[in-house]
Each structure stands twice: as C-alpha cells, then as structure tokens.
C-alpha cells in the first residue's frame, strides 16, 4: 500500500474509507468552488455489482449495478465504478430485486395458548422467517382488530426489524379464536375508522377471515369500513357459510381473495365439477379482483391451481399465510411458493412482479416493491438454483421441478439482515 505509513487501517472497508477521505480532502483543497458538486460526488455505502436487476415496476430486467447510500437506493445504472462505494458486493450470477412483500401472514405472536393468532402461539415472529426468504415486508392478515391493534403494534410492529403492516380484522378482538364463533355485536365501524386514522401508514386494509356464519354482515361491514377509508378488503375466497358467487359479486376491484386455489370440502372451489373456471370467477378476475395464493396449512391444491393457470388464472400475489401450522408443511416460506410457480411455467420476472410491485399496489403502498432512486433500500439478491426439487400442495401431492430460488442476501433499509454465504462479509483475518 502506497501510504502504508500514513495511517493504520485494519480492514478493507477502513482502507477504502480513508482513501475516500483523502480523495475528498484533495478535492476540497484543489477545487474549493465545487462545494455542492463534491457533496454529490460522495461515495455510496454499498454497491451491488454485476447482478441481473429485475424491477417490474420500471420494466427493468437486465445487467445493472445498484448503489445504496444510507437507507436509500441512490442509483441503478450499468457500470457504476467499484471505487465509488465503501462496500462492494459481487452479485454476478445473481438476481437483484426489490425486497419481497408477503401480503398474508400471521405475526401477532405471543405466548397465550388461549388466543390462537391474536397474541397466541398460532402466530409466529416475523424476523425468524422473513429475511431468510427475501421478505422485507409482511402484512398481517387480521390477527388484530381495533381493540388489540395497539398491543399488536407495541409488541410486534415496533419490535420487529421486518416492516410489519396489517389488515385490520372486522371483529374487535381479531383472530382470538380458531372456531369462527364471533360476536356480531363486536363490529364497530366508528372504532375501526378511528384506528385506521390513528395508524394510516400501518393499516393497509380490512380483513374478514375464519368466519363460519351465514350472515353477510361481517363482509358488508368490512366493505363499508374499507370503502370509507379508501382501502382494500382481504377475504377468504371460500367461506363455508357464504356462496362464492355472492362474495365475488359484492367485493370491488382491488379487493383481494386469498386461499384462492384451495379445495376444501363443503366450500365452493374456483373450478366447477368439470374442472373449468366458474364463469363468475372469470368475471371477477376481469373486473379487477385480485387472487392471492395464501397456501397456509390447507388452502393450496394443484388440482385447482394447475387447471386454473392453464385457463389463464395466474395468481396476482403470493401471500404465504405463514403461521405455526404452515411453517413446516408444504408452504415453508414465500420463496418456496415463488419457486413452485416458476416450475409451473411462470417467468421469473412475473413471479418477482407478484412478490413485489403487484403486492405493493394491492396494499396501496407505491413507496414499496420497486427500486426507484430515492426509495428505501429493501432489496433481495436471489440465487436461481438448478437441480432436482419437489413442491408439495396442501393435499400432500407433489410436482417435481428443476429450479429453486434462494435468498443469498437481504437488505432492509440498506442494512444487511441476511447473508447466506457471506457475500457482504470480509474474508477471515488470515486470508486477507
């Protein structure tokens, strides 16, 4: 090193920082008139170099470098010089995409066994599942209602590194019981509206789920609350007590049906007896109702999903329905669902679109799910592995596949939160 005696530096990062400081010093001394220009010339903190950037919002799918300063995306361009960044990560052979958005998860975790999903052990801690599968934002699917949302916020949203947003349950206590026996008088539109107004950046919509009754009141009340606050409704595609046709008639473009490809006894699936998409399902799709996967523990069947996609009904978003009873089953994690559809013939660009920008639009968060300059740097670096893989549905049946997506690196607001193989790390001391 030319200036070995000048300063003692013990890591590559430190060396580069000192180098950058020296360069800036020279610039400041020699070109005092360029004060503002030298501010622009400040180095990037992190550079993902040589990867294939897929950013569906911007129609981008090609070799591109991505630079990050602080918490934000600073630049996406070809050939950003390595010398302009403190840390350079070699992303060659890998895909760089916006951090994934899971629009259907259950993360109001707690230790109260009597409370299933709302503060109970049915829900899971988001950070334990998100980053390792490339997810940077999860949307809780109605674990909390207006009454316990503040507790959910305090215990989970505020304490998690993952960005946690929420659909608010139509019932005040949220998903406190798995039985679906809710008190109809626990629907209070005024309280719901007040809670959404108090947390407009966290509550993205309304949710009806796990409802076994035959009354339309929860759905209609949720629609009323959603309409009044300009937000979508997330609801189960197949409620046992309510006909699918009536459900799809009532909801609006932009509302989301989840568990769309389930085949559960006593519930109407999207295919008819001859394996054809029901006409009103087709119409719902055409009018702009969104179809979310949400496999969970029992709501995704190849016998529905494969004929549906052959007839053109691809999923819009790839919610996981992550919870205690799906985490170790066929669902596993969001990348496993994306990989399933990749092997069913969807393009990588399309599965990434469903996992990022389409999900962001569905929850009306256009600040997320893309790589615009200035956007918060939630980024995933994906490896596309080839080999012999298998993917399983809720009925325990399998398709084989030859591709699998793996999260090599996940960044949340510019910070490395998952690094599968030490891409962002320095070599061990004796190998420097």
């Amino acid at each position: 090193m030319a200036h070995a005696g000048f300063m003692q530096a013990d890591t590559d990062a430190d060396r580069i920082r000192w180098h950058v400081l020296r360069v800036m010093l020279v610039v400041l001394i020699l070109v005092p008139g360029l004060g503002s220009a030298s501010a622009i010339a400040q180095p990037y903190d992190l550079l993902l170099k040589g990867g294939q950037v897929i950013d569906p919002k911007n129609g981008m799918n090609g070799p591109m470098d991505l630079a990050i300063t602080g918490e934000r995306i600073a630049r996406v361009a070809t050939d950003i010089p390595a010398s302009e960044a403190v840390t350079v990560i070699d992303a060659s052979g890998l895909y760089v995409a916006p951090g994934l958005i899971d629009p259907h998860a259950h993360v109001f975790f707690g230790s109260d066994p009597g409370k299933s999903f709302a503060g109970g052990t049915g829900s899971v801690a988001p950070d334990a599942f998100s980053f390792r599968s490339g997810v940077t934002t999860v949307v809780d699917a109605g674990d909390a209602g207006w009454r316990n949302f503040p507790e959910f916020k305090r215990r989970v949203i505020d304490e998690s590194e993952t960005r946690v947003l929420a659909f608010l349950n139509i019932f005040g206590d949220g998903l406190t019981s798995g039985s679906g026996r809710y008190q109809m008088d626990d629907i209070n539109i005024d309280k719901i509206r007040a809670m959404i107004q108090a947390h407009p950046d966290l509550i993205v919509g309304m949710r009806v789920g796990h409802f076994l009754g035959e009354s339309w009141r929860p759905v209609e009340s949720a629609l009323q609350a959603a309409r009044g606050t300009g937000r979508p409704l997330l609801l189960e595609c197949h409620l046992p007590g309510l006909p699918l046709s009536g459900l799809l008639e009532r909801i609006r473009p932009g509302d989301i049906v989840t568990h769309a490809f389930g085949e559960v006894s006593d519930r109407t699936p999207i295919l008819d007896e001859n394996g054809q998409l029901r006409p009103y399902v087709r119409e719902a799709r055409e009018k702009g109702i969104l179809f979310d996967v949400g496999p969970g523990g029992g709501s995704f069947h190849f016998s529905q999903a494969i004929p549906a996609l052959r007839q053109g009904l691809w999923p819009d978003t790839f919610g996981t329905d992550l919870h205690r009873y799906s985490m170790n089953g066929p669902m596993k994690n969001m990348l496993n669902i994306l990989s399933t559809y990749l092997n069913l013939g969807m393009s990588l660009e399309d599965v990434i679109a469903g996992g990022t920008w389409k999900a962001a639009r569905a929850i009306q968060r256009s600040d997320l799910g893309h790589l615009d300059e200035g956007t918060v740097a939630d980024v995933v670096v994906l490896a596309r592995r080839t080999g012999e893989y298998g993917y399983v549905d809720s009925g325990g049946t399998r398709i084989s596949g030859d591709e699998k997506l793996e999260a090599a690196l996940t960044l949340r607001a510019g910070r490395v939160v998952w690094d599968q193989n030490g891409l962002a790390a320095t070599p061990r001391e004796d190998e420097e």
Partner: protein
Amino acid sequence: MRKKSGSAWRSILKRVFLVLVTGGLLLSVSAAYAQPYDLLLDGGHLIDPKNGIDEPMDVAIAGDSIAEIAPQISPGSAGRIIDVSGLYVTPGIIDMHTHVFHGTDPDAYIADAHVSVAPDGFTFRSGVTTVVDAGSAGWKNFRTLKAQTIDRADTRVLAFLNIVGVGMVGRYEEQNVADMNPEMTALMINELFPDILVGIKSAHYWGDFTQVERAVEAGNRAGVPVMVDFGEHDPPLSLETLLMDKLRPGDIFTHTYSYTRGREAVVDEEFNVKPYVFKAQERGVLFDVGHGGGSLIWHQVIPSMEQQFWPDVISSDLHTASMNGGMKNMANLMSKFLNMEMPLAEVILRSTWTPARVIGREDLGHLGRGAGADVAVFRLKEGDFGFLDARGRTMRGSRKLEAELTLRDGRVVWDLNGRAAPSWEEEPRRY
C-alpha cells in the same frame, strides 16, 4: 351309531372345504400384505456413531420406533417407502444449547421474553429433533417455560435450570447471589421434573466464582452436569482455575471459541491452544460450541481445530440475535466444522450421541433397534459456500449440509422436496 346320509356328509365336507379355503385365503392375503413396518427409508447412507455405523443401510420404522436396520430391507415389508438414496441418514440432531423461553414480558430479555424463540420454526428444517434450553428459566419460573414452550412444542424440549431462581430475566437479576439456591434448584430437578431437567446453568455473572460454586453444589445434590457461560469479568477470572479446579468431569464449558473482553481465550497470542485447555478436556470437562451471536470466531476455532482441540458438542445458542447472523441454524453450523476438516461422522457424533450422553439421555441420539424414531436425512451439497463468523468474517467452503427430511417419533415433520409425497396427477380429483 347312525350313518349319516350322503347329503349330510356332503354338507359337512362343503363346510370344511369352505373353512379351509376361507382360512387359506385369509392367510395368504395377510401374508401378502403383512407389512411389519410403517415406513422404510430406502437406500440411504446411515451414520449412527453410537453403533459404529457409517455405511449404506436401510432403516425401517414401526410406529414411533426404529424397527430394523439392515443393508437391504424388502420394500414390500413397509406401508410407505421414502427413497433417500444419495442422502445421509442420521439420528435426529440434538441442539444442546438454545433459548426457547419465548414470551411477552416487556421487562425481561431471555426469560419469558423476546430474545428467546419458539423452537419449531428452527428445528425440523435443520434436522434437529431435540433442543435443550440453556438456563433461560430458573426454579421460580420453570413452570412457565414448561407451559408456554415445552408442553406446546412438537420439538422435544429439555432444559438446564438456571442457578438463578428467576433465570435470565435481566443482567442485573443474574447478579443476585441471594437468588442462587442450590437446594431449590436440585429439588426442582430431582423431585419435580427429572425427565425434562438435565442439568444446571451458570451464566452472565460478573462476580467471583460464587455462582459457579453454587451451580456445582446444586449439580452434586441433583447428580446432573453444570453448563457454564463464563466471562463478563473485569479483569477476567482465571480460566485455568475454572477448568481445572471448579468444574467436575462431565461439566460443560460453553462458548468455547469466543474472543471477548472479560474472558480468557482458549488460545494464546500466538494462536496456540493453552496447555491447561487440553488437560481440562483430558480430565473430562466437556467443551461446547454455543455459537450464538458472538461466540464462534475463526481466529479462535481454526487454530484450535488444526491443533486437534475439537469441541465435544456442537450447539447453536439459538436466539433472536443469532438466528439471522453467522449461526443461522444447526445444519449451517455443522457445515462449518465439516469445512474445517472435521469428518462428517465426527460432526454427527458431536451433535447426536455425545450431547445425549452429556445430558444423561442415552435413550436419544442413536438409531439402534427399539430407539425412538427421531431421524434426520441430510443432503451434502457440493459447491462454493461462504460461512460467516460472529465478527462478520467469512470462511469459504465446498460442502454444506441441508436437511432434506426430518422425522420426529416416526412422523414426517419436515420434507424439503416432498420426498414422502405422491405426484399430484396420481391423486384422484375430488370434484
């Protein structure tokens, strides 16, 4: 004697014939469908260190137990066959150092609080079937750990009881010598929960040797080992005194390869393993990895491995601050040792049979006939992998273990690629 009429004889013969035919049919049917085994792991390479097996071997399971181990078991003898050719079959992994007392106490950190994790989200996906909680709870709050975690987990959860009555509520509470009660700790282990509590934990104490001494006293009363997380002393207390004088053979020193202020390292400034460390291992003190968020440092473990100072037990120290860092999970951690030239059978030994013996649970950690069917099936991937230590340094490696299939008591609890599942086209459509 009356002579039977011809028709009567015919009728009797008919009946005898019928009985014979029916019986014969039943016998042959039951013979054809006699499947003594429920599940057959077919064509794998079995590593069962306790039984000295490291070779191709089929494994048959009946109910929740291992029924047969043999080079060739007839596929016809099992109700269900899972092809595990090209894969390694091992006893379910035992992770001897975890923190699973998850809960919602906003004033606590590990005991009934957010730093602990729910085990099932981490175990089966990395081949683990048993975790041992390392002293998150003491005798005063162990029942809460049992109710919230142990009784509700699919993973087998055992525990070291903290010598501090309230366990790991907070660093300050852990300094309370008045709450270190050997008698109550031993009573809890011996009288109340002998099947769950396997030892005593001493940790996070800034004072003299009092905490270790209390833990050992409790260990003597209860007849169980003590696990010590030593450090946080300013200046550091003598590691040699701890290892040679304070701990008994069978006691466990964890976070072996950490490098931190407040604790003497196991290697000196020239990266030579200190002689008393070898002596301590010879006298029967057990060295545990306890990777955690900060306790496996390449410049400590690599020289140690090269000088044949190997850990007795490979364990994760799983908690929220280690789950997304260099540790990740047991399969990743075991792979680190594989890439430091520890043979696979030795890696499996140190994560199955050795921890089972250390915690006095010789019913676990092996696959002998009659043993409980806790089984892991690993793929050994070849490629270019990187492994992070707790200081954010990488070591390159060419091999990595991935949990392909995990059985707990004979039940499939993890199936990465749907090996146990039929093709969707073979299933009849239900509509």
